[in-house]
């Protein structure tokens, strides 16, 4: 289970995927949220997951980070099977999940939230904190303020910052611009570009398809828990089906 690239024959010159989902099916009770979903993310890529409400985007991320356990299928990260690991083990492998709705610890300070992001890691955090504060300077000013008292945009930055404290190889971002003012959306998009430039691989769920496709290298469109369209971001942006469904014509 630990051999790299053992999933399928690797063609010459083709990079080994960082994350592979193969036929993943997830149920919530009787509701089938994912039906044999298959996708892959290559190292260094930003991949967008698109789709309407209830398509299964969040569920895909939750399956990767171990919050839900698939009924069938495989999820491999650097060749290692994740489906039987708990969230703590998965985060130790370097997979950080910044969840939908931010899910901060409201009665803890900004600093405490960030420290908890590094919960599974030993050692000093000064350097990580410095980097995050450089990325989001407003958090430095507010570091002793309770997370629950931050504005929506600041909360989103903190949520991303907390995930970055993992020093992730793969960052799962669920709707980071949801409910943000345009200026804040720009701010978050800038941060994602910075991360990408540093070599962090990102799996990005976004309702805002224009923003998503501008940030992403490739994208998958989900419908009813399945991939219905996939391709390069530029191609998807031109794809009629995508335009009709998500870009309003």
């Amino acid at each position, binding site marked *: 289970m630990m051999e790299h690239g053992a999933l399928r024959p690797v063609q010459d010159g083709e990079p080994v995927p960082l994350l592979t989902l193969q036929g993943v099916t997830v149920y919530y009770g009787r509701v089938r949220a994912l039906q044999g979903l298959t996708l892959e993310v290559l190292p260094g890529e930003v991949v967008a997951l698109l789709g309407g409400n209830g398509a299964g985007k969040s569920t895909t991320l939750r399956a990767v980070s171990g919050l839900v356990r698939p009924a069938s299928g495989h999820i491999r990260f650097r060749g290692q099977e994740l489906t039987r690991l*708990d969230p*703590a083990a998965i985060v130790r492998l370097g997979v950080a999940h910044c969840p939908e709705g931010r899910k901060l610890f409201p*009665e803890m300070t900004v600093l405490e939230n960030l420290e*908890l992001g590094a*919960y599974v890691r030993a050692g000093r955090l000064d350097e990580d904190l410095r980097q995050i504060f450089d990325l989001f300077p407003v958090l430095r000013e507010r570091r002793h303020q309770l997370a629950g008292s931050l504005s929506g945009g600041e909360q989103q930055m903190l949520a991303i910052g907390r995930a970055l404290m993992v020093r992730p190889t793969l960052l799962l971002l669920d709707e980071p611009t949801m409910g943000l003012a345009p200026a804040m959306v720009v701010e978050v998009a800038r941060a994602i570009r910075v991360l990408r430039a540093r070599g962090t691989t990102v799996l990005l769920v976004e309702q805002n398809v224009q923003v998503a496709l501008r940030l992403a290298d490739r994208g998958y469109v989900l419908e009813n828990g399945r991939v219905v369209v996939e391709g390069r971001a530029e191609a998807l942006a031109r794809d009629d089906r995508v335009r009709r469904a998500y870009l309003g014509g």
Partner: protein
Amino acid sequence: MDLTTILQFTVNGLFISAAYALVALGLTLIFGVLHIADFAQGALYMLGAYVSFYATQALGVSYFVSVPMAMGLTGALATLNGALVYRPLQRHGGALTFVAALGILLILQNVALWLFGGDFRLIASPFGEGRITVGEVVLTHHQAFVLVVTALLLGGVWMGLRYTKPGKALRALAQQPEAARLVGIDSARLGLAAFALAGALAGAAGALMSAMRAFDPHIGAVVILKSFAIVIFGGMGSVPGAIVGALVVGMAETLTAAYLAAEFADLVGFALMIVILFARPQGLLGRVWA
């Protein structure tokens, strides 16, 4: 009434509050982290008293050693309850754990009745009759000891939650369980830690208080009802709420008995709780985050 009498009432109220605070703190921790109303903590209070009683009487152990012994044992028992009863039941919903909690309380009560008999026991205080008297105000050495130990325990838990890594993880788990799992906090293990801590606090309360109050296997049921009301009053899951709630209720009861009549003490205590809950449904210090 003169000043010494008023001071004496204050001392009495403070002392009653100490017992409430220790038990309520454990309850609120468990509730905050696991959303379980662990009425079985009442039985742990009772067992704490018995452990200290038998350790000092039968084994000849010093009282000062018997208190940590009681805490260890009740902490372990609470952890077992958590692991063997509550955890398997929890995924079937809150009502089940509530019934289980009452069940454990009754079972432990009856086991104690069978093991120790129904006779009233009294732990011999190592301080004997020693007392501090200022004018007419009396504080026994044992009471002073209890107040100091309670303050240390409450302060210790407070600092631990605030500044240690497991403490922060517990708070994180209480505030946002899903994100806590995402950052790698092992909710099952920390849940058990909350049980252990709460059990130890209840055991400590039992061992500390029972040197001046006669106890029998039923003492726990009485203690837990009031403490649980205090947890709701202070704000379910709120640590400062439990402590402030214990103080407010303990003092309100004492002052009612002092200036009105003892028969209204409980009434006023509960009435105050209801009034405050009308104004603040989330409890005195409970918070609502969107």
